[in-house]
């Protein structure tokens, strides 16, 4: 979500710029909503990719690498993608082929833009 700080933020006089000056847009404000995420699909490989990314985050699992790596790779990532994929399939937004967290978060962002409209331009 973006907002212009000045009404003419994109109306910059570039006539004095030297030739070959790189395009450098500026003057707008963005709002970025951050959420956890959701797998790209419920089958084995998307689930495995998601779980690996999530459970490799040292902010999430603070165990030392040498201790955690074999547990994650040899046990969890062989067993859990199938089970979790099954769980995800039961709540999946099949119409948009995505997890509900993504559907809800997108809708939140779109409606927030509507509320801020006037001072904001959605991209």
């Amino acid at each position, binding site marked *: 979500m973006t907002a212009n700080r000045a009404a003419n*933020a994109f109306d910059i006089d570039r006539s004095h710029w030297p030739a070959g000056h790189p395009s450098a847009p500026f003057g*707008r*404000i*963005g709002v*970025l909503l951050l959420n956890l995420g*959701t797998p*790209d699909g419920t089958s084995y490989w998307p689930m495995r990719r998601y779980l690996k990314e999530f459970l490799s985050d040292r902010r999430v699992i603070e165990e030392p690498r040498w201790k955690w790596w074999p547990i994650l790779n040899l046990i969890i990532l062989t067993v859990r993608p199938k089970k979790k994929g099954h769980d995800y399939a039961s709540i999946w937004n099949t119409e948009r082929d995505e997890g509900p967290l993504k559907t809800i*978060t997108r809708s*939140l962002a779109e409606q927030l833009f509507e509320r801020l409209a006037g001072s904001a331009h959605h991209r």
Partner: protein
Amino acid sequence: MRYANPSTESRINALKDQGCDRILLVPLYPHYAAATSATACDEAFRALMKMRWQPAVRVAPSYHDDPVYIDALARSMTASLAKLDFEPEKIIATFHGMPEKYLQKGDPYHCQCLKTSRLLCEKLGIVPDRWLTTFQSRFGNDPWLQPYTDATVERLAKDGVKKLVLIAPGFSADCLETLEELDVENRDIFENNGGKKFAYLPALNDSPEGIDVIEAIARRELMGWI
């Protein structure tokens, strides 16, 4: 999104490409935890590390005790409770758990969850005897924040509680941990142990109340910029 798509980096780059030289990051976690809010910001900062011309960045703080948030939860809950065909004997406010040792390392998460729960109970005027606070989604063998949600649901059912309501104020959007773990698994636990009426009340999600909260936070944190 911190994991999978759309990635935080792709969205920050998109904002920058559109000319954003100021960016407000709003982690959609009411309660601060290193494992959620901090890692979401880390990921955003990693994207900034690769930029020639970095935008100025602000981060919205946790909003666990913000009156706007407590009020939105109370309004949403009141509306959901009114739709039920029963009056719950007990209400459980359940929050995602974390290893107990993270609390001992200084994570404010546990305290913030308890505060939300207390403020919400007070706001709704519910007698504390009917209100419990628990932690869910335990993973691995280490002790996590307690009491555990599933064990509490089982105990209540075995103690003769017939009508139970679960709410999960820490989740800004419903996901596997609420729709499946709470509404399916914990419902099963309750009903298999003698419980009769069970309801999980939806998260704020993209309801008008949910948007009220994020709008209030965004407007407050954008002060001086707009």
